[in-house]
């Protein structure tokens, strides 16, 4: 029996995935192979640049850039004649070789709108195991043993956080799944929600059992309509068959999940801001302590985790914390999903073991920069992260190494830039983003970041001085220390890392009034030519 999995995620739909799905269904009927072939929609396989992608099983045959016409060809040759269509297959073996798809294990294989598919692949058996044969403390111990760290960016030990909330007095207690993936350039969480929504729900439910929460919220960006739709359907479906709700698996544990939509605020990804938003207020962070673990939603103990963190929990429960702890590296276990984008031959969604090098990701999996261009930098961690130079390509991707280098893991963005990118302009771009998204509450962030932006603007227009570089560093370090929340505390990172690793570009802009990448000064050059 062949199964034709057509990727219908947000990456492939704009390129005609739904027409391709229909073409396969029509072709199956026309060639009369309903008895030996099933066509299903599926989530992101990761090869986003060559979508629509189609995975044919058995045998994991991955077809790229499929059209309604080639859909017919695949049915005729691969299904009817049992001969895979070689010239349509995805040729790049290197893309998957160094990946380890655990969190994304079901992406490309199941229909995300069918909980039956998730269950057939072992879904909800971890929840059954946890509720019927483990007590909450055993669940927490397994997560602690696993070494799982928060996947939202900060890397706080997940098991420790669970234990804090478990010890806090309640009920009521709450759990919030953070899907406010605001980092520009990142779509890992979106992909997970569209491809395997139940892994999030199952992970959330197990975590809720561990801490004693009976109500959960998935906070999701309003800009992700397909992910919202997929999660909504998933929640309704499991509610209707009793996998969430009252007395799950006939135990005394009850748990409900609701969606809460964001409305376009990057700062809402910060844990106290997300709480404010769920409470119907402006997403403005507040000082901690008290931490959400003791005083969160409506003043009650609340567990907040990134959706990728939660999606790891079913695997840990099924296989044991010790099994998980052997994946990746000792101080940073497990895998991480990344959106690999920018000037790279193979942009897409990847999942790699922690400890893999940046070089492997950029040049092995991503296959390097396009022909004719030269690699310049890899930006890791979004607007809170840093731009790392070619000398650091052998850096291991783990929380501590990245922090030492001035970047952060973030929620999973790796943007590759080539010699056409100007590092001063890039720093200005990220600073402008943080200025726009700052909630405005604290002076260092609100005024400090704006001042940094104006200085950078001056440098890119030929009005910079060498004193500006000292001012940027002093101001940047001050803002990092004095800001109320993570947005301000990490906002200066792009400037500070580019000053650290690409100082010569700043000096060129200031002293020679020259942009090495040829990006800045264009308006002035045009003016000079015209006059």
């Amino acid at each position, binding site marked *: 029996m062949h199964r034709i999995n057509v990727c219908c995620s*947000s*990456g492939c*739909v*704009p*390129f005609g995935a739904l027409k391709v799905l229909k073409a396969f269904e029509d072709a199956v009927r026309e060639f009369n192979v309903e008895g030996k072939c099933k066509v299903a929609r599926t989530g992101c396989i990761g090869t*986003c*640049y060559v*979508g629509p992608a189609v995975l044919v099983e058995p045998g994991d045959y991955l077809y790229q850039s499929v059209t309604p016409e080639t859909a017919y060809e695949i049915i005729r040759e691969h299904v009817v004649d049992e001969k895979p269509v070689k010239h349509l297959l995805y040729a790049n073996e290197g893309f998957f070789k160094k990946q380890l798809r655990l969190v994304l294990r079901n992406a490309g294989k199941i229909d995300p709108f069918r909980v039956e598919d998730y269950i057939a692949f072992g879904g909800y058996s971890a929840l059954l195991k946890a509720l019927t044969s483990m007590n909450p403390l055993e669940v927490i111990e397994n997560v602690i043993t696993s070494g799982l760290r928060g996947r939202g960016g900060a890397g706080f030990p997940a098991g420790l956080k669970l234990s804090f909330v478990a010890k806090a007095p309640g009920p009521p207690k709450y759990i919030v799944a953070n899907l406010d*993936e*605001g*980092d*520009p*350039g*990142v*779509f890992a969480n*979106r992909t997970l929600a569209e491809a395997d929504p139940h892994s999030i729900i199952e992970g959330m439910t197990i975590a809720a059992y561990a801490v004693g929460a009976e109500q959960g919220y998935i906070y999701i*960006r*309003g*800009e*992700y309509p397909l992910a919202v739709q997929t999660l909504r359907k998933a929640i309704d479906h499991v509610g209707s068959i009793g996998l969430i709700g009252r007395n799950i698996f006939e135990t005394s544990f009850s748990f409900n999940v609701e969606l*809460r*939509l*964001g*409305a*376009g*605020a*990057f700062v809402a990804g910060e844990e106290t801001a997300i709480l404010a*938003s*769920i*409470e*119907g*207020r*402006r*997403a403005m962070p507040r000082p901690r302590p008290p931490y959400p673990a003791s005083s969160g939603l409506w003043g009650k103990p609340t567990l907040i985790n990134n959706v990728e963190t939660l999606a790891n929990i079913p695997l840990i429960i099924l296989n044991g914390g010790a099994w998980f702890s052997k994946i990746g590296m000792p101080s940073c276990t497990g895998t991480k999903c990344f*959106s*690999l*984008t*920018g*000037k790279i031959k193979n*942009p*897409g*969604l990847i999942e790699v073991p922690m400890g893999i090098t940046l070089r492997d990701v950029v040049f092995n999996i991503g296959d390097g920069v396009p022909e004719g261009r030269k690699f310049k930098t890899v*930006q890791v961690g*979004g*607007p809170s992260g840093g731009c790392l130079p070619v000398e650091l390509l052998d850096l291991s991707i783990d929380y501590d190494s990245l922090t030492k280098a001035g970047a952060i893991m973030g929620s999973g*963005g790796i*943007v590759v*830039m080539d010699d056409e*990118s100007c590092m001063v302009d890039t720093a200005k*771009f*990220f600073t402008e*983003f943080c200025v726009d*998204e700052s*909630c405005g509450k604290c002076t260092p962030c609100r005024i400090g970041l704006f001042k940094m932006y104006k200085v950078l603007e001056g440098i890119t227009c030929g009005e910079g001085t060498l004193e500006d570089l000292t001012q940027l560093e002093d101001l940047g370090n001050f803002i990092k220390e004095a800001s109320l929340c993570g947005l301000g505390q990490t906002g200066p990172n792009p400037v500070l890392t580019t000053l650290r690793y690409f100082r010569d570009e700043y000096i060129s802009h200031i002293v020679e009034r020259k942009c090495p990448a040829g990006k800045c000064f264009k308006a002035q050059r045009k003016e000079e030519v015209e006059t």
Partner: protein
Amino acid sequence: MEISQIALKSDKRQLMLEAAMKQHQYRKDSLIEILNTAQELYGYLDKDLLLYISRSLHLPSSHVYGVASFYNLFKLRKPGVHMVNVCMGTACYVKGAEEILSAIEREFNVRRGETNVNNRLSLFVTRCIGACAMAPNVIVNGEVIGKATKEVVANSLSALLEVRIVEAR
């Protein structure tokens, strides 16, 4: 001001909005959900709509305005007939989104964040729609144009607006 005095046209949209508020039991913390629903129904959130929601949820109108004006997705002014969003996420920026945005501004006489003179075209910058592998992305009336170029976007807009593109200077 009493709810009855607020000039909200009594129509199907009002019934649906009322139903949404009822579904959320008129809870104050459902404000963002209600604002989302209201924008889906009415296209944007004008003063009367915000007042109506504030009275219905028993919230100060300043609070409702404060929330509505905080979040980027909420539109407080009527958008044009056609909406163009240029994604300015990192990957899109690196792959030339700024050039596409500038070209639209020039060729269709509209500034980012504004609606053009005859109210037909609104141009917005959106931060990241999560389609980064297909950068640069431009969304025209909800449809994503991935791997966008100046030419493709200009052709799409001129077909919608039924205008000829102004020759690039």
